């Protein structure tokens, strides 16, 4: 039996987790909130070791904890901020995998006598495995180890439904008649379902899926808490499950995407993603000098940073350009789309890293009415978030997503590496517009050239 003081320590840890989530909801308290959460986790883990509850294999356990912590710590410290979304996806996946394994081991140890407990075990295995394999696929997509386009399997809809049905039948059967081969089969089916679930999701919708899988992992951890009779796991898992579900809804709203269409869009063929309008259409391209002149003699300039800016590590150069323009008396603002970068809020993090003043960052609703009175919009490494197809083209996968209305400005300059479409894989009509000028090249290179031209102006 767990000693009372251990239970009280776990209660304290649960309260710390609640404070953590609460703190993370406001910019001022976010960092402390996260530290409180870490303190709660440390407390609960440390107490378990000194609780007097007998632990066999203690040396192996300690070694695994240390090695795992080191791997987590180092990868989290070393990751480039641009690659942070896929690392979060990976962490989420391994958490789901851990929950599934915990349930499997508990089954091996105690068997399936208690049916309610067995049902919770089966739930943990299924949801944990789905979260694991689904997160690995999102990781591969974001890391661009596989295509970020929706992957359409022939008859994928039916295959997925078949696997889902088999998983449900297997789960029920396992609860009724516990057999080890059935558990293994269920594990495999769930892993396959997780992959099928994420494969057809298009690149732009991946953050929503990460958030949803995060909630899934939370629920599987809660269920594993029921299996192990551990109140802290139930509370922590449920908190994440509930807040993750709400967050998924919020994110989908910010992107103007109903969750159902995100997840099943590809099944219905709406995410075909090949609106290719021919690569040979004429575009107007210019040199760094042209861009410098346009910007230098404008009254009002809006900068639209995108993921390409971050990939080129050009945030600092962009800031230098903005400072130069401001010194010339040009009014400069940054327009931040809610999903600029790869996740909601990602771009704010990346620009804060380059110490761009917080007040110059304007959110979409605030900046959209300003484009009509803007002389030049400079789009750096962004594409989908300024694509008017989201407003006009019902067949576009991004249809309905709120965008930055850069097409309303007098002139638009795109810094792009090539004519390759954005993450969502669709053509952008503004690129072919008369008022648009393209400056091809690496974002940092191009910005540096524009900056030096501007200095000589």
């Amino acid at each position: 039996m767990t000693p009372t003081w251990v239970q009280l320590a776990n209660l304290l840890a649960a309260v710390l987790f609640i404070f953590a989530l609460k703190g993370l909801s406001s910019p001022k308290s976010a960092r402390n909130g996260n530290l409180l959460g870490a303190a709660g986790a440390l407390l609960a883990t440390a107490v378990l070791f000194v609780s007097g509850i007998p632990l066999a294999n203690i040396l192996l356990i300690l070694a695994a904890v240390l090695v795992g912590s080191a791997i987590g710590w180092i990868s989290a410290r070393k990751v480039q901020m641009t690659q942070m979304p896929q690392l979060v996806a990976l962490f989420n996946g391994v958490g789901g995998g851990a929950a599934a394994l915990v349930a499997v081991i508990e089954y091996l140890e105690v068997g399936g006598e208690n049916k309610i407990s067995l049902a919770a075990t089966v739930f943990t295995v299924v949801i944990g495995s789905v979260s694991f394999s689904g997160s690995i696929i999102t990781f591969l997509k974001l890391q661009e180890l596989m295509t970020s386009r929706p992957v359409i399997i022939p008859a994928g809809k039916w295959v997925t439904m078949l696997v889902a049905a088999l998983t449900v039948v297997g789960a029920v059967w396992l609860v009724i008649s516990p057999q080890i081969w059935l558990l293994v089969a269920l594990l495999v089916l769930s892993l396959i379902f997780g992959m099928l679930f994420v494969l057809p999701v298009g690149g732009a919708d991946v953050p929503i899926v990460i958030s949803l899988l995060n909630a899934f992992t939370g629920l599987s951890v809660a269920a594993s808490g029921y299996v192990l009779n551990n109140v802290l796991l139930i509370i922590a898992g449920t908190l994440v499950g509930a807040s993750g579900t709400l967050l998924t809804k919020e994110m989908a709203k910010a992107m103007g995407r109903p969750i159902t269409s995100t997840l099943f869009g590809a099944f219905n063929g709406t995410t075909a993603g090949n609106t290719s309008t021919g690569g040979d259409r004429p575009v107007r391209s210019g040199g760094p000098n042209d861009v410098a002149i346009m910007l230098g003699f404008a009254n009002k300039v809006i900068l639209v940073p995108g993921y390409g800016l971050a990939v080129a590590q050009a945030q600092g150069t962009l800031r230098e350009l903005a400072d130069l323009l401001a010194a010339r008396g040009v009014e400069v603002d940054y327009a931040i789309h809610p999903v600029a970068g790869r996740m909601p809020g990602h771009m704010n993090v990346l620009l804060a890293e380059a110490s761009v003043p917080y007040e110059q960052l304007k959110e979409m609703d605030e900046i959209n009415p300003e484009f009509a009175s803007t002389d030049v919009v400079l789009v750096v490494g962004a594409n989908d978030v300024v694509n008017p197809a989201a407003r006009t083209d019902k067949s576009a996968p991004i249809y309905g997503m709120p965008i930055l209305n850069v097409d309303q400005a007098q002139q638009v300059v795109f810094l792009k590496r090539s004519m390759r479409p954005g993450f969502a894989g669709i053509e952008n009509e503004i690129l072919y517009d008369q008022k648009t000028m393209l400056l091809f090249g690496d974002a940092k290179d191009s910005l540096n050239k524009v900056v030096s031209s501007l200095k000589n102006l």
Partner: protein
Amino acid sequence: MDGVALLTIFILSIFVGFEVVSKVSTVLHTPLMSGANAIHGIVLIGGITVTGSATNPLEITLGVIAILLGAINLVGGFVVTDRMLEMFKPKKPVARSDDGGAA
């Protein structure tokens, strides 16, 4: 603890979970997701518990893997969230608010 007590805790936790994250600005969506992600890494203690009572090599092996994965999730999750939030130092906007007005 009996099933109904656990169910009570579960249901109440759902409400708390909904309550604490309502009205979050989009700026914080990513750190919040990442922080929540770290919290479910507490499954680590589940891994430790089952490995602590494991008796045969298969259970022990699976248990060690579960602990490894759980620890990566827990520690990595909190550290990466902290790195994101390092950027939101409250000092900066205050220090720059005067020249922001002039620009």
